[in-house]
């Protein structure tokens, strides 16, 4: 493929990749030695230059790193999700040590997500069955939301400062609205069974699947009520949270093993990128680009795939700037690939 760039994260297996929201040439990679099972983590800050991808800096951590998120407020700040239960904030203008480290989660932290609207907060989710909301200015978390289930992914809505979501090993998509009063429900407003609810009187019968661990999800950047989920059962699903009982809108089967990461395009409302244990990244349309009805007829389909990784692909992200289609992926093969989705269309 022409124009594909590569960077080797020597000795570290990739877990997450994120483009800077401030600079089109800056990429962060969260990675871990020994496949994240035991050993150190490393956060790479990489620059896209005329001479290829260059490491601007890296930060080593005691335990594995599983996710990272750039600050939306401060161009030099970035948080990481650590295997030792800590959440760390680095300032890339400084060296070696984090400017803040919060040790509250009791088990591995699997995801971090910055609030895109109210840019002074971010969220983390953990194997310990909680989501925590943080402010870089505060020494302790602001709020803890229980899920009682290993929570692989949490994300703030890009459309609201107080709505966030999670998916977890209990096969459910949760929507929290922090504007609701504090009560026993802990701000939980929707609990959506991803595998499909049991048949209920008055609702049409629909296809149902056994529950399976959900590993990733993402909010659509244009349609504020649409969320895509995916995980161990390999099927990507989209949900409209305005109608949580309706079940999935689109089902996108195709991956051969569990899907590890999903990212909606920042440019096109129907396009989705996925990364999977089957060693591929795939580009999908959910079928909503033509007519609204298409999605219900199963108009969603795979548009193309990248098969260049040689191990599990764990992270993928879109470049927000420039021509639509540039993206980056990381894998256990210790490589970051930067490539143009348009080059794999139809493959």
């Amino acid at each position, binding site marked *: 493929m022409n124009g594909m760039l590569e960077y080797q994260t020597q000795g570290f297996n990739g877990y997450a990749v994120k483009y800077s929201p401030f600079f089109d040439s800056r990429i962060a990679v969260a990675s871990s030695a*020994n*496949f*994240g*099972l*035991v050993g150190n983590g490393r956060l790479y800050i990489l620059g896209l230059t005329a001479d290829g991808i260059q490491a601007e800096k890296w930060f080593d951590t005691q*335990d*594995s790193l599983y996710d990272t998120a750039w600050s939306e407020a401060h161009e030099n700040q970035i948080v990481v999700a650590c*295997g*030792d*239960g800590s959440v760390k904030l680095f300032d890339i203008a400084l060296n070696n040590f984090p400017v803040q480290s919060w040790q509250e989660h009791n*088990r*591995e932290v699997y995801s971090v997500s910055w609030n895109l609207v109210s840019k002074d907060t971010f969220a983390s989710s953990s*194997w310990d*069955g909680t989501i925590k909301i943080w402010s870089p200015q505060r020494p302790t978390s602001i709020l803890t939301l229980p899920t*009682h*289930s*290993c929570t692989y992914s949490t994300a703030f809505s890009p459309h609201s400062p107080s709505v966030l979501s999670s998916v977890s090993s209990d096969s459910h998509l949760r929507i929290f609205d922090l504007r609701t009063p504090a009560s026993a429900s802990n701000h939980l407003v929707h609990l959506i069974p991803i595998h499909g609810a049991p048949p209920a009187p008055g609702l049409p019968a629909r296809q149902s699947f056994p529950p*399976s*661990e959900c*590993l990733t999800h993402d909010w659509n950047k244009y349609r504020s009520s649409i969320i895509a989920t995916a*995980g*161990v*059962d390999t099927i990507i699903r989209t949900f409209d949270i305005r109608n949580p009982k309706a079940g999935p809108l689109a089902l996108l089967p195709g991956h051969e*093993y*569990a899907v*590890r990461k999903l990212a909606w395009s920042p440019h096109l409302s129907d396009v989705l990128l996925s990364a999977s*244990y089957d060693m591929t990244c795939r580009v999908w349309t959910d079928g909503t680009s033509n007519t609204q009805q298409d999605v219900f007829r199963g108009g969603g389909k795979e548009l193309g795939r990248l098969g260049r990784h040689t191990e599990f692909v764990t992270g993928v992200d879109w470049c927000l700037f420039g021509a639509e289609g540039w993206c980056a992926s990381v894998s256990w093969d210790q490589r970051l690939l930067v490539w143009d989705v348009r080059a794999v269309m139809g493959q």
Partner: protein
Amino acid sequence: MASAGERLSTVMGHLNPSKASGKSKLLEKNPDDIVITLAVRTPLTKARKGGLKDTPLDDLLISLLTSVREKSKLDPALVEDVCVGNVLAVGQAYAARSAVLAAGFPITTAASVANRFCSSGLLAVQNIANQIIAGSIDVGLAVGAESMSTTPDNGAPPMSDKVLNHPIASQNTQPMGQTSENVAGQFSVTRQAMDAFAASSYQKAEKAQKAGWSADEIVPVTVQWKDPKTGQVSVKTITQDDGIRYGTTAESLGKIRAAFPQWSPSATTGGNASQITDGAAAVLLMKRSRAEQLGQPIVGKFCGATVIGLEPRIMGIGPSIAIPKILEKTGLSISDVDVFEINEAFASMGVYCVDKLGLDPAKVNPRGGAIALGHPLGCTGARQVVTALSELRRQDKRIAVTSMCVGTGMGMAGVFVSEH
């Protein structure tokens, strides 16, 4: 934080969900888990001969419930409901509630009975667990109890012509002994295989009793006992199972006459069938969050139970279909299970089920089963839970499946995890 092995197993679970997830999920500790904080039983003694022969159901229950109340160190007012698994007693609902009150529980502690023949004890566990899951109660006690000395099993009652003329329903008139012969005949289970199975049950039970493995299962019962020779009534404390005949071998069992010469192949004998016995067992249940709040010691976890029906004439093979059903529901495979407690109603069904499921005989009833220990019908389901948890503790293992065949053609099975 998790070890490298745990992290690896989560990744393996992503790749191989059907294989890895069941067991690891089962061993997870969640606040909503239904946990067991106490599991005890009385000694099992021979009906009409043993130490409990003069103890009616209510006295047996009062003794066990008192032990539970004292041993658990739990405020009895917190126990909201007691479900008593019992098959034979007349007026069993009177006995249950009265015994609860007489054992020192307050008037707010309710009681009910559960009866699905030999699965009644496990059904009681399931009923209490379901009440806790549904939020009806927070803490409950499941009991299985049977006094076969004072209320003997007289078989099927008179039934309507519609039942008697129905091809399958009419099979329910067949005595249990006949169903054992049906199993032996239909599935070609030989007398030799049955005697070997039964001898192994005796030998395992003998070894366990001599080694004192059951010491943490059994709470003593103090009873009035009438000497059959002198008629003298004395007070005795019963501490040991008395059904285990030491030195039993397949050869010695081979000499016993067929019990049912009228039904071919007449392979069932008094030596390779379960004994008629008195006894009771109790399992105290609550949510993990509640147990932690109360500082109760968590000894195990109830992970689910299921039931399935089959032709009444071969009711004995119930476990061979109930066990796969509960394994499928819990995502376990046979090899994930460390201990199987399968009720030995008859050696014919025991041999068939072990063979059909391909079980490792070393994992099946490691302390002997109903052939050696006895089978107090309503007690057995709860007794097997108590024994399984104690055995998992001894072996330092985790997962037990308990199952039994059920008269009138059913099988029930449950999964329990030890958290010693």
